[in-house]
């Protein structure tokens, strides 16, 4: 069964879908130049073509870079970890990283829904997060 959703705080935000408890991001692929985008977009930013098809990203990607953020705006609860994750579809997506321990560059991650660092009315907002693959999670004990 497939469930879909859009993060509530922003209608243009990361749309995702959950199938058999695996979280995927939704994107679009240009039928002319094959460039892939997330979030999905109506016009190709690479070549201007308007014919894009939906594509599913993940569920596994690789950490391109990361940082643990210690100071943010009052709307966020620091510290939190952010990572740019590269997906095999050749698209890079910024994601919150699950937990307070940062990854290292090159770590493999999958996706999970979890309360994010943003606070709406004092409560965390659910966001798609990157998390270490199970083998990595076990390594960390």
């Amino acid at each position, binding site marked *: 069964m497939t469930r879909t959703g859009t993060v509530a705080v922003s209608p243009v935000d990361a749309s995702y879908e959950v199938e058999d408890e695996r979280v995927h991001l939704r994107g679009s692929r240009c039928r002319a130049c094959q460039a892939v985008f997330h979030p999905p977009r109506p016009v190709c930013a690479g070549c201007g073509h308007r014919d894009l098809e939906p594509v599913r990203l993940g569920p596994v990607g690789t950490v391109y870079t990361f940082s643990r953020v210690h100071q943010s705006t009052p709307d966020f609860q620091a510290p939190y970890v952010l990572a740019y994750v590269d997906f095999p579809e050749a698209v890079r997506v910024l994601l919150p990283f699950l937990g307070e321990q940062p990854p290292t560059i090159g770590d493999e991650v999958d996706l999970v829904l979890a309360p994010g660092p943003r606070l709406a009315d004092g409560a965390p*907002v659910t966001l798609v997060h990157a998390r270490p693959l199970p083998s990595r999670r076990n390594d960390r004990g």
Partner: protein
Amino acid sequence: MDEVYVAGIGMTPFGKHPTQTAADLGAEAVLLALEDAGAGRDDVEAAWVGHVFQGMAMGQRALGQAGLSGMPIVNVENACSSGSTAIFDAALAIRAGAYDICLALGVEHLSQRFRGAFTPDESDAEAHIGLTMPAVYAMRAQRHMAQYGTTAEQLARIAVKNKYNASLNPLAQFKNPVTLEEVLASRLIAEPLHLQECAPVSDGAAAVVLTSRRGRDRLGATRAVRLAASALKSGRSEVGLPDMTVEDLTGRAAQEAYRQAGIGPDEVRFAEVHDCFSIAEALRVEGLGLFPHGEYPARVARGEADLGGRLPINGSGGLLGKGHPLGATGVAQVVEVVRQLRGDAGARQIPGARVGLAHCRGGKAQGVEGTACTVNILVA
């Protein structure tokens, strides 16, 4: 095409100005620049005014405060490159032969508007995830460290250098040098960047009088400096998996500026670049072709970018030391380059400097590499 000259410069101290408004600061910079150029208010044919967060008609308010009104006034918003885009626009109008004497002003009063970290615009999804400007540069720093062996200590030395230079600049926000240990002991903002590696919240304004050759001669501005190049580019859409240590935007603006000036990067004797964070200075100068890609932090540690070094970078103190009132920053960089070329830089004078470059790169918008980037080259 007409040649363009900087005939007058003016700048307020950068820092916290709780008793002055943005219009007060802008007017002060304008009056200083007019006086320096030997220009009266009626000499100014048109004005461009860069700012980011000052609201509607900032230019009319600041110029009105200085007693100037009635001429064409254009308000310019281009993120941190707003002020330098005002210079680009004014220079373009002069080159096109539309005017002989123009004003470019950059102004920002941030201290009563902002605290904490800057974020991208709220309409970007990335802002909802918690992306801050320090985090953007922290993540680029992590890549620079992984790819080139750059260390947190080398990055911190960029802040030490710029804050030392600022201590020689009476208009700078930070008056005191800091040690490497103090930078590394300041609190983490986004790893690996510490507080002392992030530009402060600042108020300030800077202005230049730009002229054609005819305008320069009409004013009798004998100390005018030639603006040999003024280039503006915007960031390209990011497609695929680009190398985040490479500044394509800076590189394209630089190529255009070098082409206009008819010089290569090896002829630049000193530069003011957009060091909003320590790592940013490395990314800029490597993108400008002033230092080999990946090597800048190690070369800073060897003193190559010091005021007495091979190629001084941010002798004014840069954004890290002089301060960063967003809209004013790009104009203040040009003010500093002119001061150096005239031999007026006092304790931070670079002997024999004939060719100086000012690089200003602003902002973050989702899906593009950067918002806007200007490169101005001045020749004595």
